């Protein structure tokens, strides 16, 4: 009899359909020679330009280099421990409900081995318990809220970047060390959690470092407002030594474009907690002398190391612009994940690690990144601390770009709380245990 | 005996236009009253005041001796005054039967019984009976949008009758009905109304219809009653001939 006979039933359409449906429901089989990595970042919406797309470009550059094995030591092994990295990109735009659903789809339908993602704090809060519930490995790479590991404990969830507390503590310390006079300060922050939290951290820091400084205008334009004329009048009306803002992206750009011609920055020192990402695009429109943070030692404030040269120059060659915060942060996440995978593989005899093995390898680990050393010291070894730098802007007509000068680097322990202490309590207690310049 | 409807001193003005001035009308039970008058004479205003659509500036309206001024239309309906409309007010996408069921059920659309099916509690039988009485049973399953104008007119009146009203007000029951259908249609209406033992007031322009079907005629001019009596007398009245029927010229 013909050998085809046993498979004849396959030709019957219903059964074939059922068969392929079953295959679909099972999902693609997990490949053993590659590491499938879900990457979630804003590809549309207001955060795409500032953070999401630079992060995607950073990921593409780093993954390309890693898969070729051409990253510098100790990252010169191909892919993750020899496994080729296979990224699946998902847009973070669309709200927390959608993110939880898509995270599940990534793990359960696309069978990714790990997910690196999330810029929005709300999304991070929402997806962390979902990954924990599924017992799958998740790295949060960018979001700022300290609440994630201060309010809950996770086994499978890590954040490889410091939370937002260091941005504001470092700003305060920088002003203090540069003897910036702060009799009064005005604030303008977006009316949502990032703006509220940043403001609270900044005010608390100022109370410690400048106990006599008086807060004045406290403006809270809504997210994406675009028109700041009224706010600028209010800021100009109540003259203050310092104007603090945690605005970012398009909102920050619009605010600067509208405020600079009205002379707002001539009388007040502008202090921005997260602004390096607008420097390449704003260029000469960025006021000189603004004190800005980058949420890490990133971009123009990054340290001079071979690792950073590889990243900075490689990215710039590929994208024609220097890398900003988003690109750095995803890079430190990917390198941390690489270290963890390779460590786990050393211990399990070279197999692709399980989420449990990955989590064990990641916990309390340390690794070098282009922006400096990342240490998983908080949240029971799940939350990173990292060095940060603050600098002042100056437009350099010769280079046709904004440069940062008078840069000061802060060690991670100087601007981050110790383990088991909530950040806001730490600030209000006067930064106990902070180690600056190697001293406590 | 208390009249079914009694109005005293009804006044209504729209700016400078007087639509009703000192209207006193008593309608005893069982009477068929026709309201006549030229356009703008105040007939429809009278119907709208009695049914609560307009509130009179002054005066009282009593149903069986109880004042109903200021009540919402639905409360007046529940007390027993129902009406039809010059332009039939139907749910055109629903079938004729569904319209009748709505009419049977509407006043019960509160309380727990409103969760029961529309066909229950004898409503379907009631609706079928009325459709039959108006000769509309064959249209029951057709959406109203497909029905001719004369049928819509009758359906509109049938809906007003579902609640066994004490007083039925018909606003121009034969307008838009072709000349040859008018009398058969009115025959149907009178027969059905008689079956429900309702008192009836109808606005009408066709004096042949008025003569044939009304027990009593009330003529309006400029918001006032200018004549009131049996049809033959009123239609002979000089003022009525001058201002209403136009036969004087």
């Amino acid at each position, binding site marked *: 009899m013909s050998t085809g006979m046993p498979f004849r039933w396959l030709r019957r359409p219903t059964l074939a359909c059922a068969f392929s449906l079953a295959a679909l429901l099972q999902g693609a089989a997990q490949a053993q020679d590659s590491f499938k990595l879900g990457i979630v970042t804003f590809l549309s919406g207001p955060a795409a330009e500032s953070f999401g797309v630079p992060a995607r470009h950073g990921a593409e550059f780093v993954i390309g280099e890693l898969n070729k094995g051409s990253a510098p030591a100790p990252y010169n092994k191909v892919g993750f421990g020899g496994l080729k990295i296979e990224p699946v990109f998902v847009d973070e735009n669309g709200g927390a409900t959608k993110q939880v659903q898509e995270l599940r789809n990534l793990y359960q*339908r696309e069978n990714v081995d790990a997910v690196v993602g999330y810029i929005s704090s709300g999304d991070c809060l929402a997806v962390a318990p979902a990954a924990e519930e599924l017992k799958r490995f998740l790295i949060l790479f960018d979001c700022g809220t300290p609440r994630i590991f201060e309010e809950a404990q996770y086994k499978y969830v890590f954040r490889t970047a410091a939370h937002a507390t260091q941005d504001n503590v470092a700003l305060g310390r920088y002003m203090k060390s540069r003897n910036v006079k702060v009799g009064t300060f005005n604030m303008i922050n977006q009316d949502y959690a990032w703006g509220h939290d940043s403001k609270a951290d900044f005010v608390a820091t100022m109370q410690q470092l400048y106990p006599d400084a008086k807060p004045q205008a406290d403006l809270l334009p809504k997210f994406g407002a675009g028109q700041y004329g009224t706010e600028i009048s209010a800021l100009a009306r109540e003259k203050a030594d310092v104007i603090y803002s945690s605005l970012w992206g398009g909102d920050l750009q619009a605010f600067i474009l509208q405020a600079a011609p009205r002379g707002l920055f001539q009388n007040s020192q502008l202090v921005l907690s997260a602004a390096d990402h607008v420097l390449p695009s704003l260029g000469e429109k960025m006021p000189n002398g603004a004190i800005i943070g980058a949420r890490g030692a990133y971009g123009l404030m990054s340290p001079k190391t071979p690792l950073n040269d590889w990243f900075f120059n490689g990215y710039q060659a590929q994208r024609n612009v220097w890398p900003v915060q988003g690109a750095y942060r995803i890079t430190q996440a990917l390198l941390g994940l690489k270290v963890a995978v390779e460590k786990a593989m050393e211990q399990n005899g070279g197999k692709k690690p399980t989420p449990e093995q990955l989590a064990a390898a990641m916990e309390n680990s340390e690794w070098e990144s282009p922006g400096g050393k990342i240490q998983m010291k908080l949240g029971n070894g799940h939350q990173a601390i990292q060095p940060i730098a603050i600098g002042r802007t100056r437009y350099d007509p010769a280079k046709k770009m904004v440069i940062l000068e008078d840069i000061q680097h802060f060690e991670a322990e100087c601007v981050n709380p110790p383990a088991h202490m909530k950040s806001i309590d730490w600030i209000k207690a006067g930064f106990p245990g902070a180690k600056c310049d190697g001293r406590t | 005996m208390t009249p079914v409807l009694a109005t005293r001193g009804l006044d209504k003005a729209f700016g400078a236009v007087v639509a009703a001035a000192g209207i006193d009308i008593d309608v005893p039970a069982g009477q068929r009253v026709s309201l006549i008058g030229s356009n703008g004479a105040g007939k429809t205003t009278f119907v709208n005041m009695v049914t609560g659509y307009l509130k009179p500036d002054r005066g009282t309206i009593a149903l069986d001796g109880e004042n109903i001024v200021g009540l919402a239309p639905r409360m007046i309906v529940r007390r027993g005054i129902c009406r039809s409309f010059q332009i039939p007010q139907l749910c055109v996408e629903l079938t004729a039967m569904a319209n009748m069921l*709505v009419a049977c059920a509407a006043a019960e659309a509160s309380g727990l019984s409103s969760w029961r099916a529309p066909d229950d509690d004898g409503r379907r039988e009631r609706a079928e009976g009325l459709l039959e009485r108006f000769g509309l049973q064959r249209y029951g399953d057709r959406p109203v949008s497909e029905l001719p104008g004369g049928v819509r007119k009758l359906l509109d009146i049938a809906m007003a009758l579902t609640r066994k009203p004490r007083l039925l007000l018909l606003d121009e029951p034969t307008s838009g009905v072709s000349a040859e259908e008018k009398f058969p249609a009115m025959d149907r209406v009178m027969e059905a109304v008689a079956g429900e033992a309702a008192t009836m007031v109808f606005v009408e322009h066709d004096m042949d219809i008025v003569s044939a079907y009304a027990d009593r005629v009330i003529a309006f001019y400029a918001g006032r009653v200018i004549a009131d009596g049996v049809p033959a007398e009123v239609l002979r009245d000089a003022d009525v001939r001058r201002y209403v029927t136009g036969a004087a010229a």
Partner: protein
Amino acid sequence: MSRTAISVGAVGVIGALLAIGALLPSWLLFLVTMAASHGVVSLGILLIMRGGLVSFGQGLFFAVGGYAVALTVNRWGATDALVLVGLGGAAAGLVGAITGPLLARYSGIFFGMLSLALSMVLYGILVKSTALGGSDGFNIPRPTILGWRLEGASGDYALYALAVVVTGVAAWLCAIYTRSVRGLVTLAIQANPLRVEYLGASVRGIMALNFALAAVLGGVGGALTVLALGHIEPTFAYWTQSGEFVFVAILAGPRSVSAIFAASLVLELVRSFSNLYFPNTWQLALGVFLLAVILFLPGGIGSLGQARIWRRPTKGRDLAALRAGEAAE
């Protein structure tokens, strides 16, 4: 379809879905849970829509139900899912009972816009409430059912079963309701509110009750969503969320209760797959899909072989009839 047939059908469908759920892969199970939890909110819009009005503020009740549940869990430690779903529905129903009579005075686009404004005021309040996590919201632990904590794969299934049973019962009740005296009079209100008033019914009263029932359904949807998601945030009350509920209702068409859930599921699937296959242009793909459905299925998904209630189909008429309020003369 008679009411008995509907009831038998409802039991059958719920049973079948419970059985199917055991075979579904985990990601799809969760997606269906979300689709059901959101669909039940759109079911409320259907109730209002049959009376000729469309609410663009159901996010208000979705959020009230969700926050009521999440706060009860976090502040008072109640964890029983059944109790919590009831609580979410009751809280939203209470708010609906207060706002319903106010909103029932409005017709057409004004009703829609006022409901939208109210939901946006709640959104603003929630964003401002730092104690509730502000715009980031907060998380709640997995609930329990009769003392059993819903964890892992079996927990996922239990949440799916909860959503299927609760929304199934809600759909069954709505199907009965639309075939009741009130349901029929609601349809008549859509066509001719004046006449309904002249038949002795209170149009505002009926619409206010429909609105309160829709609010309960919104709250139940919010509660189910929060329990399965484990997270709540102010975007529950944001206008885009409310708009999505309306979209599902329109996608389903005004005729059928079950079509709502089909529409909700289709929307979730399309969004999910377009997000994966076109990460850069998923909004475009979604938009094209929505246009295509509105264009080629004017009666909504429900017009695909569905028993008609009290009316004959006239092409394209149903949606025209959604034009709120105006009496058809």
